[in-house]
């Protein structure tokens, strides 16, 4: 959804349109310089990861899934991803104080 709560555009029909929407997304959400990739119009990667509307995963150095987050939006938990990343990198896992 757009910043004002309204949907911005309907499903982009072409990869070109997707690229445009993705670029705006990265800007509006201030995600740069995090690298962004755009899925195919058939959402093949999204489907392979059952990732709609949002989801977090961590792929280990061994190319295997190290962490699979719950399906979004309720399962989307950056804290869990952080813990998983720490685990993969051999860093101490800290319990967040909240």
């Amino acid at each position, binding site marked *: 959804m757009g910043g004002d709560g309204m*949907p911005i555009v309907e499903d982009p029909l072409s990869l070109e349109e997707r690229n445009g929407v993705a670029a705006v997304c990265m800007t509006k959400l201030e995600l740069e310089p995090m690298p962004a990739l*755009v*899925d195919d119009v058939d959402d093949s990667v999204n489907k*392979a*990861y059952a990732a709609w509307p*949002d989801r977090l995963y961590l792929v280990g150095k061994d*190319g295997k899934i190290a962490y699979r987050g719950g399906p979004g939006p309720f399962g989307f938990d950056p804290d869990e991803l952080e813990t998983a990343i720490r685990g993969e990198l051999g860093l101490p896992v800290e319990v967040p104080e*909240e």
Partner: protein
Amino acid sequence: MQRLSLAAAGFAVALAGCRAEPNAVEAEVEPVEVAATVSPPMDAGDEHDSIWSYLVARYDADGDGSVTPAEYGRASFDRLDKNGDGAIQAADFEAGARDNSEAMRRQRSQQLLAWYFQTDDDANKLPRTELEAAARTYDTSGDGKIDAEEFGCAAEERRELGKRPTRRATRELDAFATLLDQTDEDADGLLATAELVGFFDAMDDGDGVWNLGRGQRSSRGSGGPPSGPAAGTVAPDFTLSSPEGGAAVTLSSFAGEKPVGLIFGSYT
């Protein structure tokens, strides 16, 4: 909570799919190293602070402040020309501009209600009873209506209890306004429980339950295991490009080098 700095290894790759709430912005993973194969991000930040701004820059060939069919292409054009006056202009993107698609409106409002009015852990269903129960918890004054303050406070409490939505602090006013927009029959600026339930019933197919999440988007739910690849299995490989169309990135190329964080998000 301590922020994690990924100076040693690993970076996060954000994949843009197609729709819904942009949660990825709140991930506290800081990517430091950027793979050489990924192009630098497009510097759209300074030029485009709105979708209209982006569209006009990209499609308004003759610079007259209107994007014509010839300039954009008929299929996309019809979708965006909200007031149907034959041109896509700033007016079609103003706050009052209405989305043509009933299905999109329904899905968005259902999603909003789900985010704020669920009480159990089943994120895929919102029964009317759950909506009513949640509305009661928001209505701290007990007058049957939720005002902006009650909404904000309740959302804050839910965050503290660890219930979703968690990191949407800036979105509550938007959500409240959008919900009002959809349901405020008597235009009193308050979300009456009766209005919410009335809205629910109007969109319900009669079984008293809204099915959310994957079931709502049948065009996207198929293919691949319903739950996604489990931990310990080989990550499905892919090769995708950045929005700027730079060199493609293949997931498996990082095997043996570094872990890769995948942040799936969407933005329409």
